[in-house]
């Protein structure tokens, strides 16, 4: 059992609920902007509106897994269990966004490409990323010893986050059905604004989710520490 790092106080909610309320308003504004203010695409008509949920989910998923990478590395370096909990919080939110990216992509793919799914490099690597982090989350459920759990999670988290780079580059390295990354040059200005607003809305929401999840994981660990300490004193 880890006994070396019991000397920390769990984080407080502070002003984060206020930030949460702001992200909700920002997200609603972004979604309304995307749904009502962007003209239909010449090829796909109103289906173009799906990019305001699919693309932000995919982008922010990458950022979230980068956070997993950062805190996993920092845990292995400093051995502070709070870094492990931060990585776990980010992994959970990242997995959620990853699942959302896949589901929304399928809904986007059916009417535009004509198929729900294709085993091309982009879709396959995104699915692999999802499965790795499902593995990460179940690993945390199976291993009870916090130190061992933290070490293994860090290893899987780093391995999984490396795959984000493969997902990103898959459309450039390999010939895929999925199109290459769009850029402001390939996307009309009327779409770029709504896309940016929604991307930031998803980013803020992700930050909020990760912070609050981190808070609750820290509280549970700190409660365990307090109970352990009381039990030791009692014995």
């Amino acid at each position, binding site marked *: *059992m880890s006994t070396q790092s019991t000397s920390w106080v769990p984080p407080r909610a502070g002003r984060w609920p206020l930030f949460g309320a702001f992200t909700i308003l920002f997200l609603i504004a972004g979604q309304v902007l995307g749904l009502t203010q962007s*003209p*239909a*695409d*010449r*090829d*796909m*008509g109103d289906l*173009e509106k799906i*990019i305001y949920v699919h693309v932000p989910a995919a982008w922010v998923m990458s950022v979230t897994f980068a956070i997993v990478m950062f805190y996993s590395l920092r845990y292995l370096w400093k051995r502070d269990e709070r870094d492990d909990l931060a990585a776990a919080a980010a992994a959970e939110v990242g997995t959620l966004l990853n699942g959302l990216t896949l589901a929304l992509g399928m809904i986007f793919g059916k*009417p*535009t*490409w*004509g*198929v729900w799914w*294709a*085993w*091309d*490099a982009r879709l*396959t*690597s995104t699915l*692999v990323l999802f*499965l*790795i982090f499902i*593995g*990460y989350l*179940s*690993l945390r459920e*199976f*291993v*009870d*010893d916090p130190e*061992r759990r933290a070490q*293994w999670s860090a290893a*899987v988290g780093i*391995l999984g986050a490396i*795959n984000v780079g*493969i997902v990103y580059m898959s459309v450039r*390295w*390999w*010939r*895929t*059905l999925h*199109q*290459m*990354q*769009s*850029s402001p040059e*390939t*996307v*009309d200005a*009327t*779409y770029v604004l709504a896309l940016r607003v929604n991307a930031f809305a998803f980013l803020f929401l992700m930050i909020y989710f990760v912070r609050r999840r981190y808070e609750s994981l820290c509280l549970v660990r700190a409660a365990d520490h307090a*109970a*352990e300490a*009381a*039990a030791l004193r*009692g*014995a």
Partner: protein
Amino acid sequence: MNIDESAVTPAKATKRRPIAIAAVVVVVGVFGWLLYGGLDKNVVFFLTPQELLAKGTSGYDVPVRLGGQVKPGTVKWDDKTLRLTFDVTDGQSDIAVQSSGAPPQMFRDGQGVVVEGRFGRDHVFNSTGLMIKHSNEYRPPKAGEKPQEMYKTLIKGSGA
């Protein structure tokens, strides 16, 4: 009650350890397999007309995906038999494709497509599945153009 709980935890941990190790092995294994093995075969999702023709006789009658642009002016649609024929081009070579059923709505002249099926010895590609490969461009229609209308006029106009 807390003492009881902490006494149970190590035993539970050892019981679950094999499952955890198995989970890690599966995750790492799937990752490695997809990276270096499984994905390798799927890395090229489709062949271009030139690549398919270059395969010669080994390219005939095997399941394959062919990708390229719909060559403008080659689309023919039969309303009665639901037969759709068009040429797929990569700019250098063309392959005639025969397909049945209505294509996805974004199908039109010049659009990127991927067809699944077999390339026959008669040099006609028999398609069993038609996918649109959309570019990374998103633009509203120019003045006068109506989105979606192009699909309708294409299917109607080529029926004759």
